[in-house]
């Protein structure tokens, strides 16, 4: 009795983690997407959090210390092979900056429709000094080569320094830009 009980919560936990955060729990989750998210949860346990499972889209939230491992797992085991987009989202009320990777796959035809939305959060500084403050994340360039320019863009637009990125330089902004990183919420554009 006891032994089977101690196993059950473990199996329940994955269920509980996946379902309540999804938008409409009464609708049955798409099976294929669910199986992928289950694989990730099975491997990493409570290090990851499934934020949503929609048709063709899986949202996974990871802490900054395990993002590199999760990315490697998605590449090696789940056959995802490129990153479509890296976007930063600023949450001043949480004092965090979220970095979202949209990961897709060309080589696996069953994953052609799928996008894995891998998000992680970095600490946000009130007075940012891009490159020299605590707003840091490990880079994914050695896992997915295609993030190179995207991460450079996030660095200049949000001030998130990617540790291990070989080329953390400006990309789009003027060379003499001395203001706040422009896409942070506390950077106000003129007249607004």
């Amino acid at each position, binding site marked *: 009795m006891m032994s089977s009980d101690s196993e059950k919560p473990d199996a329940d936990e994955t269920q509980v983690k996946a379902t309540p955060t999804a938008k409409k729990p009464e609708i049955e989750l798409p099976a294929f997407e669910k199986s992928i998210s289950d694989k990730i949860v099975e491997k990493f346990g409570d290090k990851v959090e499934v934020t949503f499972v929609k048709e063709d889209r899986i949202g996974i939230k990871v802490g900054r210390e395990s993002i590199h491992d999760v990315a490697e797992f998605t590449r090696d085991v789940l056959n995802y092979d490129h990153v479509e987009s890296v976007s930063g989202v600023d949450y001043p009320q949480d004092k965090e900056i979220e970095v979202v990777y949209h990961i897709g796959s060309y080589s696996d035809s069953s994953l052609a429709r799928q996008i894995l939305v891998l998000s992680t959060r970095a600490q946000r500084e009130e007075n940012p000094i891009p490159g020299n403050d605590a707003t840091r994340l490990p880079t994914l360039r050695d896992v997915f080569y295609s993030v190179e320019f995207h991460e450079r863009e996030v660095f200049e637009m949000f001030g998130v320094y990617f540790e291990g990125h070989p080329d953390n330089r400006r990309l789009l*902004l*003027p*060379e003499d830009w001395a*203001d706040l990183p*422009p896409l942070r919420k506390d*950077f106000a*554009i*003129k*007249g*607004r």
Partner: protein
Amino acid sequence: MLKDLVTPENANVFVGKLGDILERAIDKPLGYAINWGRIWSLWPVHIETACCSVEFGAASSPRYDVERFGIIEAFGSLRQCDLVVVQGTITRKMAPRLRLVYDQMPEPKYVIAMGACAITGGLYFDSYNVLPGIDGVIPVDVYVPGCPPRPETLIQGCMLLQEKIKRMKARKFV
């Protein structure tokens, strides 16, 4: 008599005066001829700064064919050009480069500001990286409004510029 007037000390002044006299004498007929030449061979610089360049390309396409009005397609080198068509938004990164391009061109040179962005900043009036018009960077001769202007509008702007050149003084011919 003339010989007595000219000494090595005032030779430069004299030659300068002679130039003035010559200019006054033949300015009108020769200036007209020179301006006529300038009007029908305007060479635009191939500098595309934003999305209006699509309509600039369409203006030199067979349907609109801006070449029949004496504006040659933008294929040449900077040093032979005398017209800058600023095709759209000038950002803070582009502005120094635009000035650099303008400064490298030989005199006389004319500027057409094409599109709302080049005139006032247009749709991007509140963007953090866009200049509110190019007047602060280079002097503008003709403004062509529109977002983007139709090729016909651009051609009309070029013809306005030609009218303007016709009335300009062709001063720097000596």
